């Protein structure tokens, strides 16, 4: 039996290597076509700042790491000298990370509580339905009057965005726990709700929980840039700032930086996800 597995996986490997190569080549082709169309658009439009040239954008991107900027570190109160691009990325992360983690934590907690306890669910369901459709950025006015335009205000908006996605991940996950599994656990000595949550509901809901969190990583990048357009420091603010000086190539460079940061986080989290969910 094992022999069979090896031979079949060998052929799968050979096939997948060939198709992978083909896939990469096609992807590269698509990228080159896009760059050409971009370049064509850039050289044919006037004034030139409407569409910055690809090469200028690339140069602006490199510049982000050649020059350096000093930023203030919140809470610690110290100042930090970093390459400009990283400095502004760090500023974004100062409100992105706390907003995401806190929002995910609170969202998961409420989702678990409502998914697990139907009475609690009855109490809060109408409220959830009323608040859920409000786009996180709509909260920007309260972020401003409550926390001011800075890290805290931006973190609050990210918090709202992360909250709902993770809420629904946890809620759906716990709702979908099979009664066979909870029955089996209770015949094996699991008596209280807390143990049942920890030993059965949470691991069983883990796939949905993690998918929810991974989705919120991406969604919060969109939200964080939106929040910074209103004035919180970070890469989003720098996009606006550069365009105000008609340095559109720099705006594009920051857009790349956001894309890169998101990609790194997404890929990193997928690795974690695959490890945690090896049983699937």
């Amino acid at each position: 039996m094992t022999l069979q597995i090896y031979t079949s996986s060998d052929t799968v490997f050979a096939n997948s290597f060939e198709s992978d190569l083909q896939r990469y080549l096609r992807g590269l082709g698509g990228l080159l076509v896009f760059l050409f169309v971009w370049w064509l658009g850039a050289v044919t439009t006037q004034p030139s700042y409407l569409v910055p040239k690809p090469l200028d954008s690339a140069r602006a991107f490199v510049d982000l790491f050649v020059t350096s900027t000093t930023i203030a570190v919140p809470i610690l109160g110290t100042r930090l000298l970093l390459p400009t691009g990283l400095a502004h990325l760090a500023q974004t992360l100062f409100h992105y990370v706390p907003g995401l983690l806190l929002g995910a934590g609170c969202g998961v907690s409420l989702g678990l509580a409502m998914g697990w306890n139907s009475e609690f669910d009855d109490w809060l369901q109408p409220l959830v339905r009323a608040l859920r459709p409000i786009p996180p950025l709509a909260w920007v006015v309260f972020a401003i009057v409550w926390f001011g335009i800075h890290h805290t205000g931006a973190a609050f908006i990210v918090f709202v965005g992360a909250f709902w996605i993770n809420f629904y991940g946890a809620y759906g996950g716990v709702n979908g726990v099979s009664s066979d599994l909870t029955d089996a656990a209770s015949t094996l000595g699991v008596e209280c709700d807390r143990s049942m949550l920890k030993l059965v509901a949470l691991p069983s809901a883990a796939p949905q929980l993690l998918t929810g969190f991974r989705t919120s990583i991406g969604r919060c990048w969109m939200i964080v840039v939106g929040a910074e357009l209103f004035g919180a420091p970070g890469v989003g603010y720098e996009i606006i700032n550069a365009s105000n000086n008609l340095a559109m190539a720099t705006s594009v460079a920051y857009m790349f930086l956001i894309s890169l940061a998101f990609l790194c986080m997404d890929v990193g989290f997928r690795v974690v996800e695959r490890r945690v969910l090896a049983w699937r």
Partner: protein
Amino acid sequence: MALSGSRSTDQASSEKISVRNLSRAYESTQALDDVSVSVTEGEFCCVVGPSGCGKTTLLRAIAGLETPDSGSVLVDGNPVTDPGLNRGMVFQEYALFPWRTVRGNIRFGLDRPACNCPDCEARVRELIDLVGLKGFENAYPKELSGGMKQRVGIARALAVDPEILLMDEPFASVDARTRDHLHGELLDIWSQTEQTVVFVTHDIDEAVTLADRVVIMEADSGTVQSTITVDIDRPRHRTAQEFIEYVARIRDELGSLTVPTEYSQ
């Protein structure tokens, strides 16, 4: 004595499980209607009946997973209100924890505070040997066949050393050959552990292969039709004359009920 003969007749027959006038209704259907059954200590009792006759509800009530509308279940004279470690349960669809390995599933009950085994890891090894899963300790349920999954299910239930083993059509999703193997293994385990077994099935052959006594439930009405003691030495052979006679008798009991209702419709 091991496999031969019925153990319940060797022992002083003391009542282990007593189901008294149990009734349970779901919306429009009466799953159990005034059912009384008694199971002796160490007995292998099969409950047969067509699908939807309430046999699973009966088993779940003994497990403490189902609250009856009226009547009671007594184990050793104590009323059952909740699930307990003295009653292990094996499920039709295995109900293994997919995020735990074979070892992790079997250990589940041993990791509870109520457990007092001196060396849990040794106990797990012993159970893995008992159900023949050596070499698969670290496999996840998705990597196992149906028969292997149910072996894990049985080992997991046995881990906490319950006095009663409740089995809900455990081999219904297993292919016929594997089922024959598992029957033999289950009887081996039963003869070693001296547990009381209540085994629900819709397969008459299976009931006659395993049981000391067969409780026959009526279709639709949720009542017990009759009880038949199977007095054949083990191991039993399906082709033996007396085996075939028992199967026919049970089929008659079940058929005598369903045929008239079919005509009346």
